[in-house]
C-alpha cells in the first residue's frame, strides 16, 4: 500500500504530462504529414535541429522566444528539404526521412564544434530558457493538485491546447480538409483542382513547425541545454504513435499519454530495485501490448461474433413480413 502511495500520486501525473508534452508536440506535427499521406520518419531529425538552433538562438539573442523561433525556422528548413525531395522529386520517403535524421545528427555536432569548439553539450548561463507559467489562482483552487495545471513551461500548454485546435482544423478549415483529402483520395483532390503538391508542401511545413517547437521545448523548456542526439528516439516513438492513430489528433493524444505514463511510471518503478534494462523496456512493451490488444479487440472472437450476428439477424428478420424464408437455426 505504501508502495502504491509512493507510486501513484499527483507527482506521477505531473511527470506524465511533462514526459508526454515533447512527444505530443512532435507527433501532432507528424499528424499533418500522416493525414496528407506522407510517411515522415524524419521527425527525429527535425526535432533535433529544432532543439539545437533554439539553444543557439537563445544564446545569441538572449531571448528564449527568439530561440524558439530559430529552432522552428531550422526545423522548417529540414521540412522543406523533405518536401522537395519527397513531393517534387518523388524520392522514397523512408530513405529521405532516415537520411535527414543522419544529417541532423552530423550537422548539429559539426556546428557545435565549429561554434563552441567542443563536442558534447552546450550548457550554461548564457542559454535563456523558457520561464515556467504559473497559473494565477491555481493553488487556491486546486490545493495540492495545482501542479497538475500550473508551473509548466509554455510549450507543454501549447502541446495540449493544440489537440482541440487540430481537431477543429481537420474538421472545419479548408486546409485541414484538403490535407485529409489529399491523404485519403489524392485523385479526388486533383480532379477538383486542389494542388496535391501544394497541400503536401504545406503539410510538411506545418509538421516542421510543430517538430521545431517540440525540439525547442526539449532544449529550452524541459531542460535548458543541448546535447548530441538529445531527441533520443522521441521522434521514432511519435512515428509509431502516428501510424497506429492514423494521425487523428485525439488518438495521437491518447497514444502519447499512454507512452508518457508508462515512461513516468517505469522510472519510478526503478527506485524499487528492478533491473534497469528491463524497466526501461516497459514503455515500449506497454505500447506494443496496447497495439496488439487494440487490433485484437477490433476483431471480435468467433463465438461473440456469431452470437451477435445471430441476434442482428433475428432483429432484422422479425420486422418485415417477407416471403416465407426460415431463419437459420
Amino acid at each position: 500500500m505504501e508502495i502504491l502511495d509512493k507510486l501513484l500520486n499527483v507527482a506521477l501525473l505531473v511527470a506524465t504530462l511533462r514526459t508526454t508534452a515533447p512527444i505530443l508536440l512532435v507527433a501532432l506535427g507528424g499528424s499533418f504529414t500522416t493525414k496528407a499521406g506522407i510517411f515522415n520518419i524524419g521527425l527525429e531529425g527535425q526535432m533535433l535541429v529544432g532543439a539545437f538552433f533554439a539553444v543557439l538562438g537563445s544564446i545569441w539573442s538572449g531571448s528564449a522566444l527568439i530561440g524558439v523561433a530559430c529552432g522552428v525556422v531550422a526545423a522548417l528548413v529540414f521540412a522543406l528539404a523533405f518536401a522537395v525531395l519527397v513531393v517534387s522529386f518523388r524520392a522514397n520517403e523512408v530513405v529521405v526521412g532516415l537520411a535527414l535524421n543522419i544529417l541532423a545528427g552530423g550537422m548539429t555536432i559539426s556546428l557545435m564544434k565549429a561554434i563552441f569548439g567542443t563536442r558534447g553539450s552546450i550548457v550554461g548561463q548564457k542559454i535563456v530558457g523558457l520561464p515556467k507559467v504559473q497559473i494565477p489562482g491555481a493553488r487556491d483552487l486546486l490545493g495540492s493538485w495545482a501542479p497538475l495545471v500550473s508551473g509548466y513551461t509554455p510549450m507543454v500548454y501549447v502541446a495540449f491546447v493544440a489537440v482541440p485546435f487540430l481537431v477543429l482544423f481537420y474538421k472545419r478549415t479548408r486546409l485541414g480538409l484538403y490535407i485529409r483529402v489529399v491523404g485519403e483520395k489524392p485523385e479526388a483532390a486533383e480532379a477538383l483542382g486542389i494542388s496535391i503538391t501544394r497541400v503536401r508542401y504545406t503539410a510538411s511545413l506545418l509538421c516542421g513547425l510543430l517538430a521545431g517547437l517540440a525540439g525547442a521545448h526539449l532544449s529550452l523548456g524541459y531542460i535548458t541545454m543541448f546535447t548530441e542526439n538529445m531527441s533520443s528516439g522521441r521522434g521514432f516513438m511519435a512515428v509509431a504513435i502516428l501510424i497506429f492513430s492514423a494521425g487523428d489528433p485525439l488518438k495521437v493524444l491518447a497514444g502519447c499519454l499512454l507512452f508518457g505514463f508508462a515512461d513516468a511510471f517505469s522510472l519510478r518503478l526503478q527506485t524499487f530495485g528492478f533491473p534497469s534494462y528491463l524497466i526501461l523496456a516497459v514503455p515500449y512493451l506497454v505500447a506494443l501490448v496496447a497495439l496488439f490488444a487494440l487490433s485484437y479487440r477490433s476483431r471480435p472472437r468467433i463465438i461473440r461474433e456469431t452470437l451477435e450476428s445471430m441476434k442482428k439477424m433475428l432483429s432484422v428478420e422479425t420486422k418485415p413480413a417477407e416471403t416465407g424464408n426460415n431463419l437459420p437455426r
Partner: protein
Amino acid sequence: ANGKVSVAAISGYFAQGFGVSIVNGLNKAKDEFGVDLKLVDTGNRALDYEEQFANLAKGGQYDLIFVMGWELVDALQKASAAYPDQRFVFIDGVLDSDKMIYANFAEEQGSFVAGALAGMIENKGSAFDKIGDGKSIGFVGGRDIPVIRNFLGGYEQGSRYAAPDVKVNSVFAGTFDDPAKGSELAQALYGQGTDIVYNVAGPTGEGVMQASAAVDKYSIGVDVDMCASAPGNVLASMLKRGDIAVYSLIKDEVEGRKVTPGTRTFDLASGGVEVKICDDIAPSIPADVTAKLDEIKKGIADGSIKVERHK
C-alpha cells in the same frame, strides 16, 4: 615525429563527462607545448574499431596514442601486437599486456567521499537547508554498465561508512544522451524524499543538475566541475582528472622523460580524483562534516579504509 611531439587520442566518448576532461587536457597540452594533436572519434560500431586503429598506428607518426573506452580493448590489443613500436596509453583501466601505458583512475575512491558527504549532509535532516525528514540519498547512472557500477559501489560504501542509516536509491537512465530523462529520473527520486542525488550520466546527468535547481534540492556532479550548472543546488563535484592525466603524460614526453610502459594511478592520494565542494556551498558545510571528510580521505590514502572496486 621530427622533433615535435605528436599525439593522438581515440575514443567514442569525447562528448561525455570524462571524455570532455580528457579533451580539455589534450588541448591544454597542445596549446602549451605546441604538440600535434589528432582526435579520432570511433563512433559506436564495433566493426570500425580495428580499421581505425590500423589507420592511426600504421604511419607511426604518433608518439603516443591515448585510448579511452573499454569496448576498444580488443582492437587495442590487436593493434598493440601488430605495431609493437607504437606506444598506446590506455585510460581508465589496466590490461594484461605489459607493453602499454595505463592511466588508471580510482573513481570508486572519489565516489566514496561523495557518498560520505551526501550521507552526512542527509543525516543533518531539516537542520540543514533543503534537506527533508527522509533518510535517503540518490544516484542516477547513465547506462547500467560496470564502470558506472563502480561509481555507485564507491558511493554506497562511502554513505554506509559515514551515515549507516541513510539509504541509497539508485536508478539508471539507460542512455548518456537524454538530459530530459535525467531530469525526470531525478525528479522522481526527489519526489520520493531523496534530498541529494549524485549523477554519473554524462549529458543525461546535466538534466539531474537542472532538476535539483527546479525542485530546490541538492545534486552532486561528476567528472568535471559542475557547480555552475545549478548554483546553490550543487553540493560538490567528484572530479575525475583525465585532463591532469593526459597533460602530465604529454608534459613528461615533451620534456624528454619518455613515457614508458607501466601503470600510473590517479587516485585520491595523487589528486587524480577529488571531491570539490562548490564554493557557494562550502561555507555552510558544518565543521564536523569537513573534519570527517578529511579523516576519510586520509584513511583511503593510507589504506586504512578499503574501497572495493566493482567486478
